[in-house]
């Protein structure tokens, strides 16, 4: 039998199978997602498992013992996978393979980035600051970027892992995490701490390749804390006004997703998107899932493998949807059902104009870098695989 199979059941249930190495993943869904989209969700679940165990471990375990019950190693991590399934239903980042930044004045962001850039230690490869899950700043090691770019999937899985483990709320955490798209066979050692206890909204994540570097990395955190206090950065962050759809100036526009595509490759950016806060009539959890489901469907039509299209306009009794892809961007917009076609098309122009005006705040254009790896230690294909380790242990 083929390694990929899907069953479609009458009236919209789809059952999808995905085989990755020794694992078979199955998904049963009633949503409007296509088989390809469901398969990519299964792939995310697989990658999240890899982020906790590494692919090399999984393959080796099953090579030795074909009947091994992987639940033994995954014990305690069900909430991570549950959280992943939930967040894939409501967050557009998975759909667009992109991350969302906190809208921040460029000067503030630059100040914070410089603080992160200066707080380094050998073998530190990634420094990330987040506010409520949105990216404030990300600084990457120069050599690492040249070897292999950080993918948005890895970031999403990393954030999900952190978010789903409530142990991370207090104190500092030092834990191995694998970044599956970057390198599925080895661990990074991750330092996580919140800079604003007890609110715990501003999260610092530092990744190192050195398992024994806890104290050195904790020292980086201390330096960052000091820098952030000096510049009053925490206040700036928490006072930030999030995007609201009314800022665009189109009355019937209810929500949108916008992802720029014309990013020159040498900027080595993470793919990013922007989207306003979700408001009525989609403010409940159920309605948020419903809205995302609409976007999933638009996306699958626009990016269909065999018959992709440039524009899709869908007017229903409940809302009117517009999806558009060009060489420069892709966007998905949701309007009230009473919108006229000319208003909808006009909205595209207004949105582009607004994005252009705000783009320095909405996107991180050139992520800063630092250099911490001595030249001879380049290359992360040497795996440092751990088989006996505790997940989410606090130090």
């Amino acid at each position: 039998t083929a390694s990929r199979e899907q069953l479609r059941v009458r009236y919209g249930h789809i059952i999808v199978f995905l085989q990755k190495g020794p694992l078979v993943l199955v998904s049963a869904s009633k949503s409007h997602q296509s088989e390809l989209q469901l398969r990519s969700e299964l792939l995310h679940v697989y990658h999240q498992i890899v982020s906790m165990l590494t692919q090399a471990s999984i393959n080796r375990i099953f090579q030795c013992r074909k009947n091994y019950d992987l639940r033994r190693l995954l014990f305690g991590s069900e909430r991570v996978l549950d959280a992943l399934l939930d967040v894939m239903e409501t967050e557009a980042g998975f759909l667009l393979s992109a991350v969302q930044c906190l809208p921040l004045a460029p000067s503030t962001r630059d100040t914070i980035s410089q603080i992160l850039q200066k707080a380094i230690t050998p073998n530190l490869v990634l420094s990330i600051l987040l506010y409520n899950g949105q990216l404030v700043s990300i600084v990457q090691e120069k050599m690492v970027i040249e070897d292999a770019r950080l993918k948005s999937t890895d970031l999403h899985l990393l954030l999900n892992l952190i978010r789903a483990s409530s142990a991370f709320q207090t104190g500092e955490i030092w834990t191995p995490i694998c970044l599956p798209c970057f390198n599925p066979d080895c661990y990074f050692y991750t330092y996580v701490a919140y800079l604003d206890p007890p609110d715990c909204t501003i999260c610092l994540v530092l990744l190192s390749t050195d398992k024994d570097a806890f104290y050195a990395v904790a020292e980086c955190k201390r330096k960052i804390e000091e820098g952030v206090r000096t510049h009053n950065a925490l206040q700036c962050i928490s006072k930030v006004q999030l995007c609201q759809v009314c800022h665009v100036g189109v009355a019937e526009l209810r929500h949108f997703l916008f992802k720029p595509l014309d990013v020159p490759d040498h900027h080595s950016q993470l793919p990013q998107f922007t989207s306003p806060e979700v408001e009525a009539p989609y403010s409940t959890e159920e309605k948020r899932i419903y809205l995302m489901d609409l976007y999933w469907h638009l996306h699958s039509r626009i990016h269909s493998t065999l018959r992709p299209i440039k524009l899709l306009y869908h007017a229903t009794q409940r809302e009117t949807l517009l999806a558009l892809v060009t060489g420069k961007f892709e966007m998905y917009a949701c309007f009230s059902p009473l919108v006229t076609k000319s208003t909808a098309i006009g909205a595209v122009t207004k949105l582009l104009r607004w994005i252009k005006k705000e783009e320095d705040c909405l996107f991180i254009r050139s992520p800063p870098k630092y250099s911490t790896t001595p030249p001879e230690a380049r290359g992360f294909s040497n795996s440092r695989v751990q088989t006996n380790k505790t997940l989410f242990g606090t130090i």
Partner: protein
Amino acid sequence: MLMISPRMASGMQEKQYTPSLLSFFIYNPKFGPREGEEEKKILFYHPSEVEKNEKIRNVGLCEAIVQFTRTFCPTKPAKSLHTQKNRQFFHEPEENFWMVMVVRNPMIEKPSKDGKPATIEYQEEEILDSVYGAVLRQCYSMYKLFNGTFSRAFEAGGVELLRQKLEKFFYRYLQTLHLQSCDLLDVFGGISFFPLDKMTYLKIQSFVNRVEESLSLVKYTAFLYNDQLIWSGLEQDDMRILYKYLTTSLFPRHTEPELAGRDSPLRPEVAGNLLHYGRFLTGPANLKDPEAKFRFPRIFVNTEDSYEELHLIVYKAMSAAVCFMINASVELTREFCEQLDALVGPQLTLLASDICEQYNINRRISGPEKEPQFKFIYFNHMNLAEKSTIHMRKTASVSLTSVHPDLMKILGDINCDFARVDEDEEIIVKAMTDYWVVGKKSDQRELYVILNQKNANLIEVNEEVKRLCATQFNNIFFLD
């Protein structure tokens, strides 16, 4: 079926294979529930040369899939199975009787290069479930039209009779399936109606009434002109499958003699004083020969309630064709046929030329056809009326379309989106080739328009379609 793709590179070309039928089988798990009895479940299997154990395995797999999917939705089991190389479609037309059609996915064979063998790329997402699911359901409908239900055959003569009937019908019918040219029209399974003015319609009505009065044996009548339906006394579902049979099988077989020249030997023998041009398409080919044997095909209608078996008499004069359906328990004699011929022949001949004349007058009045400018497909779920200016010819073998197959598939995608909710909707798509496709659904009617206006924007496209709706569809579609 093999088509050479226009993509050629230095003499080596890619070969594009269209979807084709891999296998088709019918089974009932209740007929062989115990281990060792699996072969008894299989009622029909194509291709028959397949080894017995493989047949059993394939049927077993289908059973397992149906069971598995029932755990998620007990009332609505599996409809299709997608794998890399093929698609399987499942249909349970009667309780416990399952029909499965396996279609090979379209594929591209890339030629061998630098010593590497030729590679095959399967296009898994290409074919539409809605289209081939409809084709499978139609296989059952066509079988049932000529053979009645599976259960009745089983009741009358057990598994053996059922197997015989299935073999006899499907062996031939499967050869007529042209899976590479199935599209949205197969989803609709609609009927093309002939546009008529009120007077002519009334003439036809009164003709039908007169004939039904004089020939009291006639239970149902249907009147067609030029492969299009004008009037039918049958239930919709029965008429739609009968219509498909008439237009794709019976009528095409009988067109040649009519087009033949006056002195051609193909010209049918007519009565000495040339009273009329009427003749039987089913039944006696030559009434003058007393020795010739004849029989009428039998059809089964109203299978859900009254379950009637009828003789199907199809009688034609010029472009007009009438179907008379008579209870099969009655024996139809030569005398009866002669009586029918004498009664119907002259009236139908007159009526046919009346219709032709009236049609030409109407066309002259309404002016030059505006239709050809717009490529559209229209379907009305309530009366099954369908109209397409995209399909140029519909015969048993092929349905030629004047648009790129990818655009037809986009139409299919839009139709699937419409099918999800039972509300008025509108979908507009701009394809990669800059063609625009507009789909409108309003009140049980669907309209699909393809516009070749590469530089137009959404507003302009909308205006064009509004214009089409105003002239052709009298503002049925209200959404702006």
